[in-house]
């Protein structure tokens, strides 16, 4: 039986991040969570599997802490969880991450489709799906909001700037989905309970033959503070104020 693998990243919950006055970011109270976009990748996996009857699995690479994510991931439906937990994930760039994921995918029997999110909610670099596709030498289709699967053929709708594009691609392939098409449902209590009983497979970076040294290094991260303009439109009646606001927004390029 073919297997569909959903890749996901365990990120810090952005709601828990505190930006200090010097713009350094305090992550000391931040909890981990599955990137919101990746929840859509898992949901897309379940929707495709419902059409094809294929087996489903999740795959993640993160620090050893990523183990905490497995129950949540599997409560969303997939049958098996694969994970690579290594401190090297802390500094991993897209090159390392995609190498680890591609190597892990090669070990999962019968993988015919890999579904990622377009980007992760922390870096949104949009590199993982194309890189994994390239490393596996499989075609990659990005920005997908809908998929119809017939046998090995997938017809995917891509949401591009201002238009929808329909493409077909044969499996094996890598698909990157946008959240729009795959709103993740809330897992029910039964699914949460059964997730704890699903099979898990831990894989090691060394065993996968990957070099964890990143090519790109993060030098610093600074919080971004949006400055308010504090422009208040006081002249005239309500309709004058709205007109002034609209024309100011147009001038800023916020409205066309």
């Amino acid at each position, binding site marked *: 039986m073919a297997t569909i693998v959903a890749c996901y990243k365990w990120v810090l919950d952005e709601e828990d991040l505190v930006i200090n006055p010097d713009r350094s970011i305090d992550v000391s109270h931040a909890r981990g969570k599955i990137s919101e976009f990746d929840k859509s990748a898992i949901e897309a996996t379940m929707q495709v599997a419902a059409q094809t009857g294929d087996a489903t699995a999740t795959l993640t690479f993160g620090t050893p802490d990523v183990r905490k994510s497995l129950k949540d991931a599997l409560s969303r439906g997939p049958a098996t969880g694969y994970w690579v937990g290594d401190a090297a994930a802390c500094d991993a760039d897209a090159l390392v991450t995609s190498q680890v994921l591609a190597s892990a995918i090669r070990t999962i029997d019968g993988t015919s489709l890999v579904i990622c999110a377009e980007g992760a909610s922390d870096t949104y670099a949009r590199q993982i799906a194309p890189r994994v596709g390239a490393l596996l030498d499989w075609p990659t289709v990005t920005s997908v909001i809908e998929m119809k699967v017939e046998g090995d053929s997938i017809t995917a709708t891509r949401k591009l700037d201002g238009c929808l594009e329909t493409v077909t691609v044969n499996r094996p392939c890598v698909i990157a989905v946008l959240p729009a098409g795959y709103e993740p449902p*809330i897992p*029910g*209590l*039964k699914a949460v*309970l059964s997730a704890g009983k699903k099979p898990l497979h831990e894989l090691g970076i060394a065993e996968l033959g990957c070099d964890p040294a990143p090519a790109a290094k993060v030098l610093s991260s600074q919080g971004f503070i949006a400055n308010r303009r504090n422009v208040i439109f006081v002249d005239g009646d309500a309709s004058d104020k709205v007109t002034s606001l609209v024309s100011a927004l147009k001038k800023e390029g916020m409205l066309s």
Partner: protein
Amino acid sequence: MVNTAKKFVEKEVAPVALQVDETGEFPGQLFKRAGELGFLGITMPEQYGGLGLDFTTAALIYEEIAKSLPVLTVNMGAHAELAGGLLNMLGTPEQKEKYLTKLCSGEYIFACGSTGPEGGDNHVEHAANAVLDGDEYVINGNKVLVSNIGVADVYIIFIKTSEVDPITRDGISAFIVDKNTSGLTIGSYERKLGWHGSATGTISFSDMRIPKDHLLGPEGKCMQATAVSCTNEFLICGPVGLGMAEAAYQMAFDYSMSRIQHGVPMYDRFQVTKFKLVKMRTMIEELRAFVYGTLADKDAGNLELCEGRMLKIRGAEVAEEVAREAIQIYGGVGCIDETGVERFWRDAKVLAIGGASIEALQDFIGTMMRYGKYPLA
């Protein structure tokens, strides 16, 4: 588990909570979702579609929901704890197979009618009665203030089958009544102070014939089991009161920090506001310790019946006091429906009566104490 409840509340309950309070319509879609998510059979046996989990888990979920829409916990409690508790405790395997599985999934909605026009706790004088005629019971009379009416597919009702013993309350039987039973009339919904959306009203029985196998438990002897299953419902009122108090407190705290009085947040300007919030918070933390301590006893099989009742009493009292003070902190705007804080006080007031009045519960505890049945540990 709690995350599931939190997400459900954030995404599905909170956006419609004020609307449910305003329209008073039974939140059918949310109830259905509660079934899909597994909230209607948390403590029920897995064999019948439940999750077989402990009461602490159930409480955590009720607490989350009560923070946003207390009446949904009432809909769920009447269905899962009152009706479901009785079915689970008294039902035959066939009755459980037929009804409990659908109760856990939410496919059927259940209501439970115990209160008569003569009083919630006054079973001795209840007039509604059942007479055995061949293989059927013929039931006449009515039950008032029953929640989930109209929307319910099945009613569990308490009916006198012989004179009621004032001490043991033997003489009352429980019956399972399908909604389409001839002779059953569903009244209209009462307009109420709180619990808008609980679909509460009168159901009447006129020569309603119920097959003998719809008797739930032994004839005339359902009240002992009821004392236990009601305890489960009373227990749940603890976390429900806690959730309501937490929500009202949080709203009041946030408001006191954002409302500017004489150039500074009201919280910093008025010591009395700060002290009120400290007192509210203290009551909440006391209640939390009481709720989860008592539920740990329940889960360990060490619960005293009195403690379940105390939890309902304290849950209602704390929720009412905290919500009342929250309105006071808001001032005038707190009295406006749209603000969304006064509904917690209205709902808390009803929590002190609906299901059993605080005084009737105190009466029970007092009697147990009087006869040495609840000594200090």
